[in-house]
């Protein structure tokens, strides 16, 4: 876990290196609201993730800490050349969408699935299982993901 000062320095530098991604993800487990907010800003600066990190990040999609899992799903959507790791990444997202207890994580997983060129059967099934979810944002994100694929 990184300190507040370390995270602030990353944010100010505007340059978050890939080797810091996993440490940043783990920092989201902090109970310190300010540290989490700054970490959120640092993670936001990451435009793309190399495929070699994708597997390690995808593991966090089912993390018990919803803030970590939410960000892991977001980062999976930023993996470069998703097709190379598509099945592995989609499996992680589909499980998070179907099984994570946090609606925020489910939303993040649905949004991430919408970025893939082609959906696996498991992903499609997970999306369809949430198409009438009570949460309006989740419902909307699921439908958007399915509609994109249908288009």
């Amino acid at each position, binding site marked *: 876990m990184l300190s*507040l000062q370390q995270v602030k320095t990353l944010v*100010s530098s505007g340059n978050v290196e890939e080797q810091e991604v996993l440490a940043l993800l783990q920092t989201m487990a902090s109970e310190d609201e*300010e540290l*989490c*907010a700054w970490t959120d800003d640092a993670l936001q600066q990451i435009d793309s993730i190399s495929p070699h990190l994708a597997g390690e990040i995808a593991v966090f999609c089912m993390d018990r800490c919803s803030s970590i899992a939410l960000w892991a799903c977001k980062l999976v959507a930023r993996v470069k050349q998703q097709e190379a790791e598509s099945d592995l990444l989609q499996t992680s997202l589909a499980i998070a969408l179907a099984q994570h207890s946090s609606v925020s994580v489910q939303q993040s997983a649905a949004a991430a699935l919408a970025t893939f060129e082609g959906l696996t059967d498991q992903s499609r099934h997970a999306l369809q299982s949430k198409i009438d979810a009570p949460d309006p944002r989740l419902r909307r994100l699921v439908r958007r993901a399915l509609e994109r694929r249908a288009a």
Partner: protein
Amino acid sequence: MARRRSYSRSSYGRRSYSRRRRGGIPVYPFVVLALIGVGGYLGCDPNSVSPGSDEPATASSSPQYSSVIPERSASKILVGSFNMQRLGKSKMKDPWVMERLAQVVRSFDVIAIQEINNKEQKAIPTLLTYVNKEGANYAYTISPLLGRSERYLEQYAFVYDTTRVRSGQEYTYTVSDQEDMMHREPFVGRFQAVSKSQPFEFTLVNVHTDPDEVKQELDVLAFVYQQVRQYESPEDDVILLGDLNQAPGKLQQLEQIPSMRSLVGNMPTMTKGEKTNDNILVNAQATLEFTGRSGTFDLEQAFQLSEKDALRLSDHLPVWAEFTLNEQAPNTGQVATGEQALTR
């Protein structure tokens, strides 16, 4: 602009306006407006305000952008917006930062603040102790904690000089977003300049979009802006301001609203000078009170700071726009004065 309102003494002895349209708020399937506060309009006691100047407006069709904020003037109202980047415990514990943030606040008659991160809700009261330390009379209104994160939430605030502008928590509301279209629902506040005659009355819509969903949120904001204008009618000076995370030219449906104008243009609003994220948007046909002067507040220049030190304050620059103290009515609209009963 035209005012058709009424106000009366409430059972608590406080002056309040009645709103005929309470309960008649336009409903939209995705976003509805709901009053968190008591609502109502600001009462104006003509005996308690200091004289304002009758200096005519110089409403301009093209803003004169500047990175230097003008001195506050008795005949003008300076409105600002500032994303204070994670205003929370760390900044509260740093007097150097707080003194300079307070100086920024004191440069304005009213300022909209974004990114307040303190669930104990002490950040703005602490800022106010610095702002008012030398005898100023600023007050604040604040939104509920907003956001989707389970780890941290944000608040908006309006901080205003009570000798120049009237407002109060009861004149604020948060846009209710039943369909969860926006990460942080806009915070709306009503204001009235302190002036004996025809004070400028305006509504500020304080926003901070989510950079991840900015495309969707900007279009929702366009709808919200129009709904707030409709709801606030006959008040037509509705000013949208805050961190939009997008520059003019990419504001999508917000820019499609007839007469909608950016008062900051494409001036960089980030401390590092790289992007235009913050803005002030008005309906140029309605808000004739805009004097034509607006821009950013260059923190490095104003406080003689290095970029590194300016970043201790925020990664954003404040943005500002100047308005006349008094209403500029192009038509024959009625204007509320004293106890005159005006219906809405």
